């Protein structure tokens, strides 16, 4: 007749169910790989000003010195004039520096990106960094020429959550051949 707390009783069963449900939920929520998630600036300024013409690139793909140089040359941005009012320019630069590949809180992967870029270089193209080439060496050349892709810098064409900084394997959909 006596029951101790460790047997099968309703309380333990409920706890067990809760635990399993919680774990499943946690697994479902967890990104494919934490490392493939890059922090994005909060608020709408960055997406509005830097995500209109192309993917709003995650700051963690380049070191702060690259972003500083870019934000100093907005009047000739790859041939486009993308000048901003000074307060907005400074606000975006601050976000970029805060989340850049070499920021003190950077993830493992971001730190590896930072380490792969020579200290005297401030590359402006993510799509030409060694890291980018390494990550995409299995993508056949003709893929980049597909109409919906068109450019290596069109991250969002394949990485469907690129605007949230999510580049995990499970969030890649390559547009079909034309």
């Amino acid at each position, binding site marked *: 007749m006596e029951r101790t707390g460790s047997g099968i009783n309703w309380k333990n069963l409920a706890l067990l169910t809760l635990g399993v449900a919680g774990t499943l939920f946690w697994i479902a929520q967890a990104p494919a790989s934490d490392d493939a998630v890059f922090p994005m600036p909060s608020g709408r300024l960055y997406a509005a000003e830097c995500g209109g*013409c*192309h*993917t709003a690139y995650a700051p963690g793909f380049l070191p702060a010195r690259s972003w500083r140089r870019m934000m100093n040359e907005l009047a000739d941005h*790859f041939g*486009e004039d993308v000048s901003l009012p000074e307060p907005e320019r400074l606000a975006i630069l601050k976000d970029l520096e805060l989340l850049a590949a070499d920021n003190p809180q950077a993830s493992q992967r971001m730190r590896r990106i930072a380490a792969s870029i020579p200290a005297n270089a401030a590359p402006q193209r993510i799509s030409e960094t060694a890291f980018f080439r390494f990550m995409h060496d299995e993508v056949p050349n003709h893929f980049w020429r597909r109409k*919906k892709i*068109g*450019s290596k810098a*069109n991250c969002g*064409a394949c990485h469907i959550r690129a605007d949230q900084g999510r580049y995990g394997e499970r969030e890649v959909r390559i547009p079909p051949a034309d």
Partner: protein
Amino acid sequence: MRAFERSMSRRAAGVVRLALVLPLMALVSVDMARANDPRTILDAYVAQAGSASAARGERLYRGKFTGGRTAESCTACHTDNPKAAGQHVRTHKGIDPLAPVAQRDRFTDAAKVEKWFKRNCNDVLGRECTVQEKADFTAYMISIR
């Protein structure tokens, strides 16, 4: 009988709730109409330009120009059909349709409209657009059904 009473009182509560919510909704929708109606943006351009012609706007949309460095026409990125999605000729990023009938948030934010007129007129014409051109272009986009 009791069920009937209950349903009546539930209905009464529903009416009261509706009476409370309706004016609120009306208020919100008036406010949204003010902020979000492409007509407001057209009116502001017309107030400066004096008039607007959708036909002239369409000629601007379809015209070929040589002044800009990015593209020779608006259609290069936005396609021949303003109701269709386009693609940036340099970055290849997809672009939502321009016509408000196909893309509800188009021509609803005056600052955004000004910003892109400035950029894209430079890209295509090699100069900023005049107020007349902006009025015509906006009239054309709104006229599309």
